[in-house]
C-alpha cells in the first residue's frame, strides 16, 4: 500500500465522520459549515486521485459558493431543525440499507481500483491522451476535451446555468416586488 492510497483512505474516513456528524446535529449553521468541510475534503480526495481541475472547481464552487448559498438561505429561514414527528428512522434505514446493498452488489464486479487494463481506459481515453496535445495544441488534456472534443457538452452546461439563473431570479425577484407592495399597503 503506497502513500497515495493511505492519504486517500484517511481523507475518505474524515468525510465519513463528517457525514455522520451532519446526520446527528440539528443546528443548520453547523450543517452548512460541516458541509463546506465535506466539500473541501472531497477536493483533497480529487487531488490525490490525479484530478487537479476537478479539485479546483470543487474547492471554489462546491465548498465556496454552495456554502454561501446555504448560509444566505439560513438568514431567511429558521436556524434550527425541529424534531420530526412523522418521520420514522427505521423506514429510512431500511431504504438506505437496501439501496446501499444493491449498489455494493452492482459495483462488486468492477475492475479493481486503479487497474490500467480497465475497459474505461481502453475506449476514447488513449486518443485524448495521445492526440489532443497535437490536435488542439494545449498541454492540459482536460481543457482540450472540455472545450473542443466535448464542446457541445459545455454549451449544454452553460444553457443549464443560464436557465437556473433565470429560475432563481424569477423566484426571488417576484418576492421583492411583492414585499414592496406590502410595504406600501402598510404605509
Amino acid at each position, binding site marked *: 500500500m503506497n502513500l497515495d492510497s493511505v492519504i*486517500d483512505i484517511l481523507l*475518505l474516513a474524515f*468525510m*465519513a465522520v463528517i*457525514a455522520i456528524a*451532519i*446526520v446527528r446535529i440539528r443546528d443548520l449553521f453547523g*450543517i*452548512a459549515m460541516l458541509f463546506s468541510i*465535506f*466539500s473541501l475534503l*472531497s477536493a483533497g480526495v*480529487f487531488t490525490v486521485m*490525479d*484530478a*487537479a481541475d*476537478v479539485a479546483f*472547481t470543487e474547492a471554489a*464552487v*462546491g465548498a465556496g*459558493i454552495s456554502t454561501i*448559498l446555504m448560509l444566505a*438561505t*439560513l438568514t*431567511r*429561514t*429558521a436556524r434550527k*431543525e*425541529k424534531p*420530526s*414527528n*412523522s*418521520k420514522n*428512522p427505521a423506514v429510512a*434505514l431500511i*431504504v*438506505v440499507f437496501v439501496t*446501499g446493498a444493491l*449498489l*455494493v452488489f452492482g*459495483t462488486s464486479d*468492477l475492475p*479493481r*481500483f*486503479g*487497474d*490500467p487494463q480497465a475497459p*474505461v*481506459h481502453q475506449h476514447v481515453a488513449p486518443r*485524448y*491522451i495521445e492526440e489532443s*496535445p497535437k490536435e488542439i495544441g494545449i*498541454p492540459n*488534456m*482536460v481543457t482540450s476535451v472540455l472545450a473542443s472534443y466535448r464542446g457541445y*457538452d459545455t454549451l449544454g452546461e452553460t444553457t*443549464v446555468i443560464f436557465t*437556473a439563473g433565470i429560475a*432563481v431570479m424569477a423566484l426571488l425577484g417576484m*418576492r421583492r416586488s411583492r414585499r414592496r407592495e406590502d410595504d406600501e399597503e402598510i404605509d
Partner: protein
Amino acid sequence: MRFLQLYNYEIAIFLAMVGLYIVVSSGNLVKKIAGLSMFQISVFILYISMGVVEGGTVPILIEGVQRYSNPLPHVLILTAIVVGVATTAVALSLVIRINEAYGTAEEDEIHEQDESF
C-alpha cells in the same frame, strides 16, 4: 481480496447512502438539500475513482511521462459540479419562497397547513 480492491467505490457508496438517509429522514428542507449535495459529491468521487490509473499522473502533458489518469471522467464531473451548484441555487431559492408562503421550512408544519397528511 476483491472487496478490498474496490474500497474507493464502497466508501463513495457509503457516503451516498448517508446523504440519502438525510434526504429521507430529515424534515427540514435546507438539511435535505445538504443531504442531496452530499449524495452528489459521492457520485463525483465514484466517477473520479474510475479514472484513476496506478502510477498515472495528472492529465497535463509532461515530457517523458507515459501514463496519465483518464481525462474523460474529469471533464464529465467538472460539468456536473457546476450544474449541481446551479440546481442547488434553484432548490434553495424555492425553500426561501416556501418559507415565505408558509412561514416555515419544516415538512411536517407545511403538511399540517395544507392538511394533506
